[in-house]
Structures are given as structure tokens and as C-alpha cells.
């Protein structure tokens, strides 16, 4: 077990917005083919953690390694290659609004591959199929429901067959059924494509369904990292409270 290398290694990460320190000294290893769930109260810095790992905001201090290489030392071009193997699903989907979801999925392929029209079309269809949106391909994002938009964004994030997927609150604003469907899609991707996931979510049901590991953030620090089972025994008051309140 111990010779498995982490896909992402975060060391002593400090994240700030101007003067405001949001995260302090976060260190964690994200293991391959695992679903790691980030938990914590609203505003505790979960989105900030994802964005700092992905350099959408530059971390203030610390290091972030992807596949053993510190990405903070990379220039933009080198980091582009890391990003091509990484996808992210944003809280609101973040689809480009002026073009159809088919075109949204096609952008990464157009920009980064030399596939001809026919092959590209096939790839796009496969990805839309995967999320069950083949019939909505030519609709604009504004014409879709929230759940469909998230699935479209997932298809786009999957366009280049990434090895790691980041999700920011995938089930926020979804009904339990749709949310469950999204979870099984995530589990399928994990099993069949050997993907690694880092997921921010509040939903207890979802956590129980998918989480291999849990990161618990509170007050800018990581209070816990481990399995769901260990979380129950860890005796961390804030986290116990979180699980207690979320149960229904």
C-alpha cells in the first residue's frame, strides 16, 4: 500500500485574498483513484482550497505538487499540460453562455487537439452521452435546468479525458434524485476510468455514497484527513457536530 504515490501533494499551503488569510498551513496527499471529499461550513475556504491547488489564485505560501512536480515553479505553458489532465466542475457550471453545450464541449478539443471534424464530433457525442445530454446538444446553457447545466459542465470537463476531476458542490441546488444520479456517474468514472476526485460537498447522503477520504476544514485549518470510519472515531468536536446536524 505504502508505495502508491499521491497524485496531488499539498504542503503548508497558505491562501490569502489581499490581507485576509483564508487557509493556513494545509498539508494533505490526494491518493490516486480515490474520492476525497472536502467538508466544512460555508465560507471556511473550500472553494479557495480548490482554486489555490489549481493556481486559479496563486497560493501565498507552501507548495502544490501534481504527480510529484511542484506546479508553483512551473511557467504557464508547463502548467497548461497539468491542466489538460485535470478538469473542474464549478459551482454554477460556468458554461460559456453564448454558445451551445455542444460547442462548449468542443472548445478544449478544438484548441488542444488536431482531431478532424468527424472524430471530434464522435468524441463530443460520447461525452454528452456519458452525462445523458445527447438530445440537448444544440441548446444554449440558459435553456437548460440546473442539473443539466452541471452535467454539461461535466461533459466539458471530461472532454480531454482528464485523470483528476475537481468538483465544487456538485449537488448544490439539485434534487436528491438528480444528485444521486450524479454520484453514481462519479462512481462509474472512478471505477471504469481510474479517475481521482476532489469534491467539495455538504451533502451527508452524498458523502456516505462516494467518499473514500474526508478533509475537514474549520477556521482556516485542516482538522482532519482520513476515511469516513476514522472520522467517526476521531473525536473532533466540530466535525462530530457537522455530521450530527446533517443527519436526518
Amino acid at each position, binding site marked *: 500500500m505504502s508505495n502508491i504515490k499521491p497524485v496531488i501533494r499539498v504542503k503548508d499551503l497558505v491562501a490569502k485574498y489581499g490581507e485576509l488569510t483564508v487557509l493556513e498551513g494545509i498539508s494533505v496527499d490526494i491518493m490516486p483513484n480515490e474520492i476525497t471529499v472536502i467538508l466544512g461550513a460555508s465560507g471556511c475556504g473550500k472553494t479557495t482550497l480548490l482554486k489555490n491547488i489549481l493556481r*486559479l489564485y496563486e497560493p501565498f505560501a507552501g507548495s502544490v505538487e501534481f504527480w510529484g512536480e511542484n506546479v508553483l515553479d512551473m511557467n504557464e505553458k508547463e502548467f497548461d499540460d497539468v491542466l489538460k489532465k485535470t478538469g473542474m466542475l464549478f459551482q*454554477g457550471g*460556468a458554461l*460559456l453562455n453564448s454558445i451551445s453545450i455542444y460547442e462548449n464541449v468542443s*472548445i478544449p478539443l478544438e*484548441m488542444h487537439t488536431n482531431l478532424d471534424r468527424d472524430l471530434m464530433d464522435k468524441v463530443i457525442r460520447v461525452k454528452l452521452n456519458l452525462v445523458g445530454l445527447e438530445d440537448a446538444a444544440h441548446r444554449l446553457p440558459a435553456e437548460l435546468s440546473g442539473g443539466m447545466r452541471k452535467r454539461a459542465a461535466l461533459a466539458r470537463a471530461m472532454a480531454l479525458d482528464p485523470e483528476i476531476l475537481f468538483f465544487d458542490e456538485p449537488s448544490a441546488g439539485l434534487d436528491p434524485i438528480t444528485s444521486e444520479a450524479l454520484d453514481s456517474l462519479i462512481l462509474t468514472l472512478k471505477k471504469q476510468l481510474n479517475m481521482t476526485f476532489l469534491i467539495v460537498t455538504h451533502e451527508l447522503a452524498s458523502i456516505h455514497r462516494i467518499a473514500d477520504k474526508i478533509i475537514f476544514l474549520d477556521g482556516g485549518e485542516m482538522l482532519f484527513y482520513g476515511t469516513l470510519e476514522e472520522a467517526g472515531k476521531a473525536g473532533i468536536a466540530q466535525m462530530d457536530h457537522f455530521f450530527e446536524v446533517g443527519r436526518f
Partner: protein
Amino acid sequence: MNLRVENNILYVQTDMDKFSVPELKSQFMRLKKSGDLEGISVIDLEAVNLIDSAGVALLDSFQQALEEDAKLLLTRGAQPKIRSLIDTFSTTKIKFAPIPKPQGFWESAGEATVNFYTKMVAALTLASEIFYYSFVGLFTPKSKRKGSLTQQAFLLGSQALPIVALLSFIIGFILSLQSGVQLKNFGAGIFLADLLSITMVREMGPLITSIIVAGRSGSAIASEIATMQVTEELDALRMMALHPIKFIVVPKFHAITIVMPILVMFSIIVGQIGGAIIALGMLDISMESFISRSVNILALKDIIISFAKSIWFAWVIVIVGSFYGFEVKGGAEGVGKATTSAVVTSIFAVIVFDAIFSLLYL
């Protein structure tokens, strides 16, 4: 007195426990009766070392008593243990505020200068990135999406064309009307053609067009980018290993560089038509001589300046628009602010640069 009022702040200068509370309360009531508490919006607790539930109850009653006058009552300066006691016992959800550092004149002047300076640096950095990627983009067709240039150019041009035409016509007409009357008095009506031609080519054509393009396209650029920032679309682009400047700004930059000179040319011609109506109708100049004088007066230098101006103004509009777009903070209302600032700043910048051009190349 254990209560003191200064600058609309109520200072509590003693411990607040069940023993001191009655005295504090009567002092408070006296202050209130004498009207000294009007306009109080902050209670300062920095000097309080001890508080109990009676003290908190007193704070609550201060809150309720003051609330009619001041909706936003804040408490500040409390030590952590005092704060947590207040949090536990308060029934009115007392809000806390940090104590502001006093700011002197030099400090605020310094801060404004530093702000302006950092903004300028950010804008210039963005400008250099835009120039760099626009230049590089000319030779790497893959960095653009197919069709985005023609689409952008068409959008820009077709949006601005009707209003540029209308305004240029009116301005050409008015300029000629005003100067025609004067020139006629001196029997120099024939010079109207020269005058209008120079004015339209060197000044009015580029200026009118830029102001309209700033209003239409500059605002569109700012609001598009700002919206994408707010909805995380820019982050999403970055996640697709795309560069927002290359992907969004560069096609617009190329498009505007092509379209602007065409619009300016158009504006000049339509302005001349407006002038021709006066020349032919009021000053009895023939069509042939109007046209030939208009063309002959122009030196190559005038035309070059006209083009240089229009391209330079176009770049200013794109850069200012994208700067405010990328800089946006907050949600939907941030987008509106960014758009307004972009339009105001780019029109201002265009006029300033116009003045500089005119001074440099008279």
C-alpha cells in the same frame, strides 16, 4: 462618569457586572434625556475587562434604547473573552466592528497615490500582455477559435455603423453650417471644403467614431469579461488550459484594429456629405470643386494621422474595457460598475490622447 460620548461613539469605561450595572443604567438614561446620545452608532468596549450576564443585558437595553435613532449599532474593541460572553448572553444579536485606525491626511493621500499607481501598473501589465498575445496570435492561428475574428469584426462594425453614420452626418452638417455662414461673410465660401475635409479627417472622424465605439463595444467588452469573471467562466477557461486574454481579448483586439479604420473612413465620407449639402445649397459651390478641393487639401500626413489615431483609440478602448472587466469585484452589481467605469474612462482617455496627438502633430 463611567460613560463618555465622543464623535458619536459611546465609550464604556468600567467593568459591567451586576454591581456596576444599576449606576451605568442611570447614567445612560441621563445622557439619553439630555439628547447627548443622538446619532450614536457605536459602543466602544475597549476599556471593559469584565462583564457578566447583567452587563450584557444592559448592553441589550442600550441597543434597544438607541435603535430608534440608529439602526446600525455596533460594538467594538471588546476583548475575546468579553465577546464570547456577549455572544452567549445577548438577545439582540449585538454586532461587532473592528476599531478603525485613524487616518491622517498624508496617509490617505499616500494611499490614494499607491492605489492609483498599482492600478496603472496593473493596466499597463494587461496592455502589454494584450499587445504581446495579439502579435503572437497573428502567427499562431491555433490559439484562436475558428470564425471568432470575422464574427467579432462583423458584430463590432454592424453595431456601430448606423449611429456613426448618423452622427457624422449631423456633425458634418452643423460644422459646415456654422463655418459656412462666417466664410460667406468674407466671400471665402469656397474654403468650406478645405476646412471640413481637414477637420473631419484629422479630428472629428476618429473622435466621433471612437466615442461611439467606446460606448457600444467598450462597454460590451467590459460587461462580457466582468460577467465571465463573476460566473467563474474565466476560471473555467483557465481549467481548459486556455488563456482568457488570448481566448477572449485577442479576437476583439484584432477585430477592432481592422474595423475601426473602416468606420472612421466611413464617418469622414458621411461627414463630407453632410457638408456638401451646405456647400451646394447655401454657398453655391459646385459638386466638382467641392470634391476636388476636399481631396486636394489632404496631405498624406493627414491620412496617416487619421489612421494612426483611429487604431490607437481602438486599442485604448479594448484595453480599458478588458481592464475593468478583469478587475471586477462582487456579483452582478460589480458588472454594472465595471461597465460604467470602462465607458467613462475610455472616452476620457480617447479625448486626452486626441489632444496629445493634436499637439504633437499639428
